[in-house]
């Protein structure tokens, strides 16, 4: 199982802060996962389709669409950061 986390405005848009997902065999990178999540429709589709400002981390390191993923990874999606 992969642990998926959603933060800030994305968490509110999706009305979900985390979930466990058994990654299907055909999901090998972040781009694949985004397409899978977008297929849920509604706010998921809007959040994960052509949202160029969406950031992603894999196991708490910043990553990009090409980053490979597997079950047991912690994968987080979030908007651009605004701390400080």
């Amino acid at each position, binding site marked *: 199982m992969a642990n998926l986390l959603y933060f*800030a405005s994305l968490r509110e848009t999706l009305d979900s802060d985390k979930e466990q997902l058994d990654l299907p065999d055909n999901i090998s990178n972040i781009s694949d996962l985004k397409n899978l999540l977008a297929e849920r429709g509604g706010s998921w589709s809007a959040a994960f389709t052509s949202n160029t400002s969406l950031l992603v981390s894999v196991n*708490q390191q910043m990553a990009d669409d090409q980053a490979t993923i597997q079950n047991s990874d912690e994968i987080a999606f979030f908007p651009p950061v605004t701390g*400080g």
Partner: protein
Amino acid sequence: MLISVQQEDFDVAAVTRELCGNRKDLGAVVTFSGIVRDQSTDQNLIALELEHYPGMTEKALEDIAHSAMKRWDIVDLAITHRVGQLKPAENIVMVVVISAHRKEAFDACEFLMDYLKTQAPFWKKEITRQGEEWIEFKQSDQQAADRWK
């Protein structure tokens, strides 16, 4: 290096004393404190809600701190960032850099703040009498961070 993400307020003087200890080779202490500013349209901010990513936020701050230690001839540094609900004029963030000379400490302190604002997973939401709104990422913050590349 002293790195902390916490709800409680911080004491710049106490952290500075802890950082300096009994060292006799220091010539400069540079501190920066960020405080909650009311930038809402009608000056009606009730609080800022600071969200973070427990675990990754601390790691990101440590990475930024290591980069500064490598890049400048500084002795040590501290970063404290608060989370949760913060009222106008309350402290949000503090950076302290100690070194032999002031130039390195000033530059490292600016670098740390510029990188923290663009790299560390924190998100601010304004809570005003009209409702709640997430603060948008500013391109000017990215430009400030890019000048250190």
